[in-house]
């Protein structure tokens, strides 16, 4: 019984939150990795792209709720998500046309593009603050829990409860759908295949008649969709704050690099690696150990390896270890 209780505690505090967070990071890292693969630079504006999409989705959600439309037990934000994606598509396509295209045609060094993306980051950050402000916004509505802690205890008769929030289930399902769509697109459609060809060898792809402008446009649109979805899911699960999204940049980049920059499969694996490491290292293991260890060995202290404020340090440490021992990442990404 103790072992089951320990497992329930573990699931409640580590596995379920880790899965949800991992899915959010994976979606974010997919965007970063696609940009890196096709456009060949690290996009520092990605966190703010996510914030922009989420901000528009929140505005749409509020309008829907004001009009009396809700999604029943599910968050209304899911109905407003397409609006957010469309707006973000326009934003990134506009940015590409006004800003990035110039450097692409000039074949500027990747590091120049990174600096340019810093400028874009400033502007997007400003725009997000313009349209929605800097406050903490909670926009999750509908049913809060799929499984409540008390309901679980009563149903199973265990001492420990397991709570699964709707947003966590939705995060995982939506992320799975998005990833499945992406892989179907990349592997089965003509455009997707030309994107992969372009990523593998630009010159050969151009030689075989692939239209680079179209590939770039499609990439930006996919990135916009991924970024907005990731942002909305993160915001539903936690809350929306412009500054937090900027800070997400670090774990997202860590996930993309750990998986191997340019490799979509790697981005997903990296997202979960980073998320689970952050959660396990910052989790206080006292209760789990209390169940599985014999009584006289049960720990007095919290058995927390690091305080939660150091979660950046965890993604960073993993990043450094992977870079030192496997510079191309777990899934053999590019190393330009």
């Amino acid at each position: 019984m103790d072992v089951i209780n320990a497992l329930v505690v573990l699931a409640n505090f580590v596995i379920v939150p880790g899965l949800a967070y991992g899915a959010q990071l994976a979606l974010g890292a997919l965007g970063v990795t696609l940009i890196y693969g096709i456009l060949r630079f690290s996009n520092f504006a990605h966190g703010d792209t996510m914030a922009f999409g989420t901000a528009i989705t929140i505005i749409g959600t509020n309008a829907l709720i004001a009009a009396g439309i809700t999604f029943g037990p599910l968050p209304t934000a899911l109905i407003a998500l397409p609006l957010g994606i469309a707006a973000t598509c326009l934003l990134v396509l506009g940015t590409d046309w006004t800003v990035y295209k110039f450097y692409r045609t000039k074949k500027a060094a990747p590091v120049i593009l990174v600096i340019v993306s810093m400028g874009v980051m400033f502007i997007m950050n400003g725009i997000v603050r313009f349209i929605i402000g800097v406050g903490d916004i909670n926009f999750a509505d509908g049913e809060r829990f799929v499984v409540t802690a008390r309901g679980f205890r009563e149903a199973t008769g265990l001492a420990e409860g397991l709570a699964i929030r709707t947003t966590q289930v939705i995060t995982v399902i939506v992320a799975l759908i998005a990833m499945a769509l992406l892989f179907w697109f990349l592997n089965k459609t003509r455009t997707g295949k030309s994107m992969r060809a372009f990523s593998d060898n630009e010159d050969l792809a151009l030689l075989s008649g692939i239209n680079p402008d179209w590939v770039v446009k499609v990439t930006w649109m996919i990135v916009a969709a991924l970024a907005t979805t990731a942002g909305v899911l993160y915001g539903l699960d936690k809350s929306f704050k412009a500054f937090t999204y900027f800070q997400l940049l670090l774990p997202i980049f860590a996930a993309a690099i750990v998986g191997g920059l340019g490799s979509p499969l790697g981005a997903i694996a990296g997202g979960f690696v980073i998320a689970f490491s952050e959660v396990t290292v910052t989790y206080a293991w006292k209760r789990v150990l209390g169940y599985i260890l014999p009584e006289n060995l049960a720990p007095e202290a919290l058995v927390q390896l690091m305080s939660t404020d150091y979660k950046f340090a965890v993604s960073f440490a993993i990043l450094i270890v992977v870079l030192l021992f496997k510079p191309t990442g777990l899934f053999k990404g590019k190393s330009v």
Partner: protein
Amino acid sequence: MNPAIRAPLLFGFVAVLMIGTGIVQGWNSALLILNMGLISAIMALGVNLQWGFAGLFNIGVMGFVALGGLAAVLISTPPTEGAWAAGGWNIVIGLLLGGMTVIGAILAQHRMALGRIRTLTTLAILIAGFFIYRAVFDPGVTAIEAINPSVSGNIGGLNLPVLLSWPVGGLLAAGAAWIIGKTALGLRSDYLAIATLGIAEIIIAVLKNEDWLSRGVKNVIGLDRPVPFEIELQQDPTFVARAVGLGLDPVTASGIYTKLAYSALFAVVLLILLWMAQMALKSPWGRMMRAIRDNETAARAMGKDVTARHLQIFILGSAICGVAGAMMTTLDGQLTPGSYQPLRFTFLVWVMVIVGGSGNNFGAVLGGILIWWLWVQVEPMGLALMQILSSGLEDGSALQTRMIDAAAHMRLLTMGLLMLIVLRFSPRGLIPER
């Protein structure tokens, strides 16, 4: 335009801006902007050393600046009574043990033959070392943080003159830069960027959470000052008499006096660093750096140790940022770890370097002062603009409040636009590299 005329003209323009601010908004605010502008110029010099000379992409400026601020606290504050006896040694020994663990793991990696035994030994050293470190370190922290937490609860400093913290801040930043450089400089440029971004966040997290060190988010206030306090001047009859003799109100005069004293100190540091950077740029070493930046492979073929040179300049540039950080904390008179934001301390410095002219020390200094002036002034300018634009609207209407609220966020937008415009139309900046 001829660069020989262009640079003095632009510096003259900045001087006009400052004097104009002084006339319109008062000399106290003009000097306030100038002081932070001088500090920003020093930060920009540091980043210019790394990016302009060597092409290293460091976006962890905030971390080095914060380390400088920590130095100001550790040097100038008096030691907390009983803190060393309570747990100081535990902390020192704990940190030493932690350091030895890492060194042990690195040695194991380097010395042992490749294989499973090496991996297992490294892991064993790391895990055992971590638990021993926590066992020694934690009691010390608990003991120190228990000492009078509402006013101290930290280990305190060495009670030395605060000016000494400026070079020490540089040393602290240099140490951190050495560790980062050793691990990340061999990798590609984007990875160095991410690594520096990460280390900056970690340094801020340490400052926010290690209460025994810097009181965390409870802040350290009332640091020593290298210049007299305004209130002392106001009570000094000779000063008051002289101020009145100049036709000034003693309160304003004391503010201007202390700020001018700071400006003089900062200007001296800036000029020394600028002179050193210019000498370095003109020396064979500077030419070698630029050669490495422009073509690493060719430089390597000429027998230059690229990684070692990169490490060298990375440490130097970061140390300059550390000095600037210590100066800033001295100017503020307090260390507030919560106020370090990457947009303000890392990316804004990058805007300064890019706009001023990367690779040109004078450009970096100009960019530092000019962009800081703009950063401060954009908000009131935006507000005025919004008030004019919304003046036709009904007073108190939703749109008008919205527009006036939005003025607060003009800064980021303007900085981003400025950066993109400069990168696009004048990628070498206002004062280009020669």
